[in-house]
């Protein structure tokens, strides 16, 4: 029975992916890509990974989907979307088929000759879990055992926003998207947005002993912000530029300060003091949630703001 469900999901995933890749209409491609994210979320549940399912649905399908759709809308609005889409050349098709077949064959060969792993990392995790300050293994890995990775990963998020900002010259420019003046939408927002905020906080809180955590909570927060943004209530207009920047960097800064303070205290980077791990993790996660929400919102609005007219001709101006 479970096998049947798995195989159905597998077929569905592959069919949806193929449609998304090969569909003639770009709009259809994006829609099918979002659909793929949602189907994959079901797959993650089957794999026993509810945390990833949450992240996939919220970030992989939700935020990525909104970003893609929005860009598509922008390209359409500016006209002539499909005109310059001439068919790729024949050698390119050949190369594509050849390399993808090679990859698949190699991977299949690798997968069917899997040896038994010599190291069982999950045993080590279980052993160390009581000292980690949280009781949910994934949160323990993300914010304690491998917190260095997470620190750099938040750096990647900040960096993406930074590059976006660097490509705008005038940072105070408002984006061009007009809000939707729909009365029913605004009425529902008063109900939906608080519900989303509560869910986000719940996800954050749940992260210490159940599936959930800063990233899922941040994505939820970002969804609420984007919804508000789309309906015309612009957070970036409410907050000053400086406040916004501070909010973007808050999570990374708090993380870095906690990391560094342990060095000054004579312990390795990122080591939490005895007994304080749980509280510090919660503090970091709280700051991260807010920042991730704002970062994802900014990634959306930066992409949205009107690109500036190209600057002075020479690239090597002084």
């Amino acid at each position, binding site marked *: 029975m479970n096998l049947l469900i798995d195989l159905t999901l597998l077929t569905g995933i592959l069919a949806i992916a193929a449609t998304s890749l090969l569909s003639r209409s770009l*709009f259809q491609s994006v829609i099918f890509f979002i659909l793929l994210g949602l189907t994959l979320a079901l797959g993650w549940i089957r794999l026993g990974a509810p945390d990833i399912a949450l992240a996939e649905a919220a970030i992989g399908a939700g935020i990525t989907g909104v970003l893609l759709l929005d860009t598509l809308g922008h390209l359409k609005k500016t006209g002539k979307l499909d005109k310059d889409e001439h068919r790729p050349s024949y050698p390119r098709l050949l190369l594509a088929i050849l390399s993808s077949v090679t990859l698949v064959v190699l991977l299949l060969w690798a997968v069917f000759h899997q040896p038994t792993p010599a190291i069982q990392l999950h045993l080590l995790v279980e052993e160390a879990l009581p000292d980690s300050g949280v009781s949910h293994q994934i949160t323990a890995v993300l914010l304690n055992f491998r917190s260095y990775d997470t620190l750099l990963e938040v750096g990647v998020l900040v960096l993406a926003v930074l590059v976006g900002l660097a490509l705008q010259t005038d940072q105070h420019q408002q984006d061009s998207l007009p809000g939707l003046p729909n009365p*029913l*939408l605004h009425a*529902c927002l008063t*109900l939906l947005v608080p519900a989303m905020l509560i869910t986000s906080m719940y996800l954050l809180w749940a992260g210490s002993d159940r599936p959930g955590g800063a990233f899922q909570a941040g994505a939820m927060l970002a969804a609420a912000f984007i919804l508000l943004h789309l309906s015309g209530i612009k957070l970036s207009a409410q907050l000053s530029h400086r406040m916004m920047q501070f909010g973007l960097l808050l999570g990374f800064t708090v993380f870095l300060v906690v990391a560094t303070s342990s060095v000054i205290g004579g312990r390795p980077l990122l080591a939490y003091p005895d007994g304080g791990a749980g509280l510090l993790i919660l503090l970091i996660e709280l700051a991260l949630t807010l920042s991730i929400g704002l970062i994802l919102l900014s990634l959306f609005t930066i992409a949205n703001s009107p690109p500036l007219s190209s600057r002075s001709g020479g690239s090597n101006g002084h």
Partner: protein
Amino acid sequence: MTALVILQSLLLISGALMFVVGSIGLLRFPDTYTRIHALTKADNVGLGLIIIGLIPANFSLLVTLKLLLIWLLVMLASALSGHLVAWEARAKQVPLAPSEGESNDELTD
């Protein structure tokens, strides 16, 4: 016990059928407005049936409340998005399908 299982199965299957019907409607109906109708109505009822079918599976008050909350939120969201699509379509003056004519492919342009 078996009666309960049969009832559950009936609810779940009919809920799934509602989804199927809704999807067929989405594909077959001629214009945006009727498609919204098919989608939202079938989904709300379908999800409702499935959720009622799930409640007795492992009864606890908390889970039941959560399931009902999910239903409520989905209904709210689908009503709202249905309304928005129709509103936008009207603003752009997407025409109603002529009673016998070709379908105008709104979703696939």
